[in-house]
Structures are given as C-alpha cells and as structure tokens.
C-alpha cells in the first residue's frame, strides 16, 4: 500500500484516528512520565495511535517532552502510568521491530563509520551478517553523502556528518517502525531537503511507520500525514493536524499556498502560548 | 626505688626473633627489676633477622643487639666495628632434626637425602656443612640442600616429604612437636660449640657509653641465674608473658622454657668461666666454616677483635 492517494483534506484539531486508512500498529493511552530524579512531570496524559505506514511528526517547544515520549515509545524508559502497545503487545523493553535515532549521534569512537553503521546487524545477527551488510552500509553512506568517509573514525567527522552516519545506522536494519529524534537538525537546508525526500521514499518502499520529532515546521508538513503539537509544563498533546497534501510529496509543494497555510496554522498554534 | 631518682637513659635492645622465651634472661631481668637497679631503661625490638639487627645497630637505632655469630663475622668483614660480648646460647641454637619415625640416627645416615634449610646460606648451612664435611660427604653428590624457609614452610617440607631432615633452630622442634609433628635431634654433641646468638655492641657505642655493657651484662647474668632455679620457673614464665603474651598462652611454653635454659647453660668444659664466655676455638671453627662455605669472602685478619670476654668476670662477680 502506498500513500499516494489524496485523502480528506481536514486540517483541524483532533481528527479522529479511525478516519485513517491503515490498521493501527502503535497505541499509546494516558501516558504520563515523572522523572524520579527531579520529580519533574515531563509528560501527562498523552494518547496517540499510529497506523501502519503512517508518517506522524511531533512539534513543540524545547523541553516539552518530545525526547522523553520517544524513549518511552521505543521501550528505553518505563512510563510512570499509561499504556504503550505495539502490534498488540505491550512495549516493556526495546524491540527488534523499532528503529530509533537519538538526538545525539553517539558513534563508538573505536569503530570506523561503516563499522558503526553495521553495529545493529552485528548485535542482532552476528559478525558474518554484519560483514555481509557492509556493501549496503556503503550504499547508505553514499546516499547521505558520506561515500568517502566510511573508513574514517568518528572523531574526524563534522557534527552533521555524524548525524547522517547515525541515520544510516538506524536504516540498515529496515525497521518496521522508525522513531526519529531531530535527525536533520545539524544539516544544511539543501541536504535536509534531499534527506527528507529520501526518507519519504524509504518509508513508502518499506511501508514503515515513522514518528518524527522535528523543529522544522516545513519538514514536518512535507513529510507527515499527521502532525501532533505538544505544549510544555507538563508536556501534553494539544492538537492533531492532518496534512492533506497529496503523496508522493515533492519539494515544490513548499511553495504552494496550501502548504503555507498549514505551516502558518501550526505556527499560530505554537505561538498561542506566549514564549515563557 | 633509688633507680627512679637517677636519670634513666632509654636503651634499645634489638633481637632477630619475636619469641620472649628466646631472650629469657632479658625478660627476667626486666621483671625482677635488675635493669632498673642498674639505672637502665630498656626497650626490646623484635625485628626480622640478624642482618636487620646489625643494620639497626649501625644506624644507631639500637644500642645493643642479639645477632648470630655468622652475620656478625659478615658485618665485621664489611668494616662494621661490631663486637660480640655475651654468648647467650653456648650450646648452639641449631640442630639437625629428623622425623621421629625416621631410621636416621646420626648425620652419617643422611647420605643421599635432601636436607631442608631456612635459606640457601643461612648460618645453619655452614653448621650442617661442617658436620657433613667432617663425615667426608660433599654437597651436591652425597646430599643436597633445599631452602624451605622456617616455621610453617619448613613443616610443609616434612609433610610433603620433600626433605628427610631439617637443619634449623631447635626451638622449632618444640613448636612443631606441639603441633603434632614430632622431630628428633641427631646433632652430635661435639658440634654444640657452634654457639648461637649473643649480645653484641658497636665499639663506638662501647666507647660512648662505657658503663652500658657492664651494667647490661650484669643484669642479664642475674636474670639467667634467677631463671635456672627451677623454683622460679613460674615467675620467670610470667615475666616472659609480659614480653610476648601470646607465647605465654601456648601450652608448650613450659617445655620450651626448659629447652632454652639447657641451651643457655654452658657445657661442663666452660661452665667455670661463667655465663657469657666465648671459647676462642669455637669462634675459630665458626670463622673457618664461614670462609669454607663462601659466606665470608676471605679470612678475617684479626678474628680476636670480633669478640671480647673482657666483661665476663665482672658480670659473673
């Protein structure tokens, strides 16, 4: 199933998830998270559903709990209360079918870029499989513009290059669900646009479900089927916006009035609560 | 007491072994107040071996020491002005020991066996070598030495049957016996002249404190006389308990006491000379065997300077 058909063009608050075509794969209900260390309530009463093949983005101000939400969804942090269910099974720890990209690149300094990228394969399938994945890793590196840097150690990469390498590391194992925490924040617009289009292509090809944290509204709109808007203190979802632009999306859609309208709408929403 | 009125000088007596019974006359003299009567305020420090005792003496940390004659000869050959004054163990501290059930009765029976020694060239080695050489045996072909350490590790040598005999301090025999390992001594009487540790001082120290040696020896001899009287055994043991309370807690302390008294009592031939007397011929024998074994690189030009019997008469007066 591809996402190319146009869908009901309702960009409004909380469009019921059942309107959506795919079968629900990810269900989160009444999630809340309080960090024990500082007794800070990072998330409160978060509920959301992801459908098969859907691309959902989260936007919200810095510190509103986006990374926390992703870590809970990927099974890295336990929720304080609430339900997290993926493919009918509660998430109580990391799962093979989830690919996670962290806000920090976190490459191992004693492995070359390509060795870092095949690490998930090495972990899950052993060394032989990892060796076999090297050509694919090199392809991915070429794709993100790091073709010449496969055999270089991470200490010799720039900030954006490390980020791109960590995207490759997530992609190498073709996960069914992608959780991405600001994957393109250190990239220039051009590379970013290019990466966005590649991400769309990869998700469509593999029918992956994707959940993206981003600060770029344009990026969120161009990639997503839905955008969730979060507000801080305590972190919660205040709005859900269905993006009715047709698929596949292209970069020139950015210049369409509909696109500008949606971006303006979200900016408005975020702006409602004054800074501080 | 009048001694308290006199200014007391603190004097340190360094010994190579922590056992209090080994220094029996000292602890008796302390307990009976003989040192105090001489105006001496004594400290005893038990350190590790005769070499360390000689080192502490030459550093001025100990004014009096109780080294063995072998290391004393060694120190003398290295230019240390140490002088042996008092022969504390005229009947030697060493013996050749075999297991009780061993067929060996004399050192001659040890042909073809392994003899355990503390270290490869401790004093007991030259002692044993002298006996074996007199019997016409050669090390390496007729018998071999195995360094097994002392105390626990020496016992291990017997228990693993790595050695058939052990040349070491006879007090070890009493201790091992109390731990269930009965040993028998097969040292020929003639070799008991290889006397053991005694009291020594540096000549420079003797010059600086000329009345120290006379006073110290006097108290020691009085302590010795007190200890040899069987009636005083209980009291003497109590005095030793002050020096080493743990030793006093051992049930074999009484039997060890008897052994020590025997070894400290001069043989018939020399008893008339009094306590502390050092027969020159015995010094010569020790010296010659040390040269023969290589412990001394060359013969000392004046062996007579190593020891002195000048105070003996005064002490025994």
């Amino acid at each position, binding site marked *: 199933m591809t996402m190319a058909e146009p869908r009901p063009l309702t960009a409004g608050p909380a469009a019921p998830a059942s309107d959506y075509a795919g079968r629900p794969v990810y269900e989160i*209900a*009444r999630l809340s998270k309080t960090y024990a260390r500082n007794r800070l309530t990072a998330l409160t009463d978060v509920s959301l559903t992801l459908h098969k093949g859907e691309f959902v983005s989260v936007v919200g101000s810095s510190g509103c709990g986006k990374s926390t939400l992703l870590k809970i969804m990927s099974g*890295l*942090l*336990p*929720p304080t*209360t*609430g*339900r*997290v*269910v993926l493919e*009918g*099974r*509660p*998430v*109580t*720890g990391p799962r093979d079918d989830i690919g996670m990209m962290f806000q920090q690149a976190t490459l191992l300094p004693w492995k070359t870029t390509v060795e870092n990228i095949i690490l998930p394969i090495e972990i899950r399938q052993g060394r032989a499989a990892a060796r076999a994945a090297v050509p694919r890793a090199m392809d991915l590196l070429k794709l993100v513009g790091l073709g010449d840097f496969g055999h270089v150690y991470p*200490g010799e990469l720039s900030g954006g290059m490390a980020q791109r390498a960590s995207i490759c590391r997530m992609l190498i194992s073709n996960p069914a669900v992608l959780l991405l925490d600001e994957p393109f924040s250190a990239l220039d617009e051009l590379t970013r646009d290019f990466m966005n289009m590649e991400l769309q292509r990869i998700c469509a090809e593999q029918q992956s479900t994707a959940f993206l944290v981003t600060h770029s509204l344009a990026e969120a709109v161009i990639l997503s089927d839905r955008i969730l808007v979060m507000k801080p203190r305590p972190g919660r979802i205040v709005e859900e916006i269905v993006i009715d632009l047709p698929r596949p999306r292209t970069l020139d859609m950015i210049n369409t009035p509909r696109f500008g309208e949606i971006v303006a709408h979200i900016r408005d929403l975020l702006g409602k609560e004054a800074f501080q | 007491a009048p001694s308290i009125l006199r200014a007391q000088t603190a004097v*340190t007596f*360094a010994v190579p*072994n*922590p*056992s209090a019974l080994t220094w029996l006359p000292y602890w008796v003299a302390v307990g009976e107040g003989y040192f105090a009567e001489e105006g001496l305020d004594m*400290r005893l*420090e*038990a*350190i*590790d071996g005769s*070499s*360390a005792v000689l*080192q*502490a003496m*030459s*550093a*001025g*940390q*100990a004014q009096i020491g109780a080294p063995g004659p072998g290391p004393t000869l060694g120190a003398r050959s290295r230019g240390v002005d140490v002088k042996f004054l008092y022969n504390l163990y005229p009947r030697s501290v060493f013996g050749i020991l075999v297991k009780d059930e061993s067929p060996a009765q004399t050192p001659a029976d040890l042909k073809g066996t392994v003899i355990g020694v503390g270290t490869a060239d401790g004093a007991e080695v030259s002692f044993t070598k002298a006996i074996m050489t007199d019997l016409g045996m050669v090390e390496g072909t007729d018998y071999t030495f195995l360094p097994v350490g002392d*105390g*626990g590790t020496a*016992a*291990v040598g017997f*228990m693993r049957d790595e050695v058939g005999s052990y040349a070491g301090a006879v007090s070890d025999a009493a*201790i*091992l016996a*109390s*731990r*269930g*390992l009965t040993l028998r001594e097969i040292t020929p009487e003639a070799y008991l002249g290889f006397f053991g540790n005694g009291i020594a001082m540096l000549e420079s120290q003797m010059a600086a404190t000329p009345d120290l040696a006379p006073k110290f020896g006097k108290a020691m001899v009085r302590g010795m006389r007190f200890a040899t009287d069987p009636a005083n055994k209980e009291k003497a043991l109590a005095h030793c308990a002050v020096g*080493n*309370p*743990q*030793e006093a807690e*051992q049930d074999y302390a009484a039997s060890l006491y008897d052994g020590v008294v025997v070894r400290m009592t001069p043989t018939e031939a020399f008893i008339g000379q009094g306590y502390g007397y050092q027969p020159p011929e015995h010094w010569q024998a020790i010296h010659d065997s040390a040269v023969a074994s290589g412990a001394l690189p060359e013969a000392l030009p004046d062996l007579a300077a190593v020891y002195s019997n000048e105070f003996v008469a005064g002490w025994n007066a």
Partner: protein
Amino acid sequence: MTATPDPNADTVWVEHEALIDRIPRWVAMLVLAAIVIAIWDLATARTGWVSPIILPSPAETLADLIFVGHNLLTGGYMLDALWTTTRTVFWAFLIAIVIGFSLGVLVGETKFGERAVMPYLVAIDTMPKVAFAPLFIAWLGFDIASKVALAAFIATFPIVVSTAAGLYAASENERMLFKAMGASRMQTLLRLKLPTGLPHVFTGLKIASVGVMAGAITGEFLGGGQGFGALIRQSASTLDTPRVFALILYLSLLGLALFFAVAWLQKRLVFWNKADRPGGVG
C-alpha cells in the same frame, strides 16, 4: 505480557533483572561464606587433607576469634596493638594520598613527569620493598614512623598511576571549551581534568587502601614495634595458625572499613556519574 491486553490496563514494566542480580545481598554473602567454610572444614577437620599447622580448621579459628575478640573488647594488649596499626594505616594512607596525588599530577600533566619521572617511579616500585625496611628503620627508628613510611611507599604507586590516567579522561570538546575560556593550565587541571578523572583517582585510592594495610603489616613484621603485625609474627613463629588466622580476620575488618569508606566517599563525590547500577540504564 498478555497477547490481548486489557485496553484499560497500564503497561507494567517488569524490570527483568538477571537471576544472579535478584539474589538478596545477605543471602548471597551467607551462601558464599557457607560454601567457603564448608570446603575449608572438609579440607581440615574432616579429611585432614591440609595439616592444621598450615591451615587451622574453622572450629579452631572460631575459638581463637572469640578469644581475640574478647581481648579486644576488654581492652587487652591486642586492642593496643590494633590501635597502633590503625594509626599507622591512617597516617600512611594520608601520606600516600598526598604524595601519590602530587606525583600523579606531575606524571599525567607534564611531559617531564611522564617521560622522565615515571620510569624512575616504576623502577623504584618494582624493587622489593622489604629491602628498604632497614633503611626506614635506620632513619625513622622502631616507632610507627618507619612502618608508616613503608606502608605509604607501597600505597603511593597505585594512586600515581590512577591519577595520571584520570587526567586523560576529559574529552576533546571539554578541553576545547576550557581552552576557549582562556583557562590557565592550572585551572584546566583543577576545574576540568581532576573532576573528570575522579573515578580513576578513586580506583587508585581503593587499591591503595588495601595496599596500605598490607604495607603496615609488612612493616610491623619486619621492624618490631607494637602493632598487629608484630602479634601475627609472634603467632606465626610459634606456628599458632588458628591465632594467625583469627588476627588476620580482625585485620581484614579494618581493611574492609577503609575500603568501603573510600567507596562511600566516591559515591558522594562522583555523584553525577549516574551509571552506578550494574546492568541498569535508568
């Protein structure tokens, strides 16, 4: 993990600790102790495989433990000895920390230290300390000073090596930050490298806390004095092995106290290092 979860139930994380981690501490310690004592008993009292001269049976050791404990509690001569040794250990540890830390900074911070001083330190530390005991006695006498010197000597080296290693632990980003702030070498050292290197330094302190005990006892073995080491030597020379083991066991309580005091201090001082649960993440 139910296949069809109740839609109203919260997701409950069962923190699946490995079996080995779920054993309560006291149970584990008791079981370990029981196993060790059982084997020990078997080897000594039951089968006589090991002679009592070498290794006393647990029962004999216990009798002496009680005896020594009584002596300690009633303020007997052993308490004095323990107090002497404790003072020795305390001063030696203090001196080892000061000297080891200073040398560690010299070695870790300067090329001069790393290339010229370190080889000498290694060479000196390889030498059998025993050979230096007479020197210390010659200079410092029979009192605790000579034992303090020997113990400090032994305990210094681990602190030097660890401190020097700790100074390399700061990341390049952090060094850049300090450089950019115009921090002097001393400031970089004090405000960045040392705090970052604290976990390393504490590794050295832990090793040294055990080394200083060993050093104090060795010193008392070799050089007279009135400490616990002298008591052990007395007992050993009379082959009173149950007493030797009893004394050693009390001594190791002192060592445990010192070690865990250091560990406790580390927990307090290196509070930001949250990765302190084995196997855990959160």
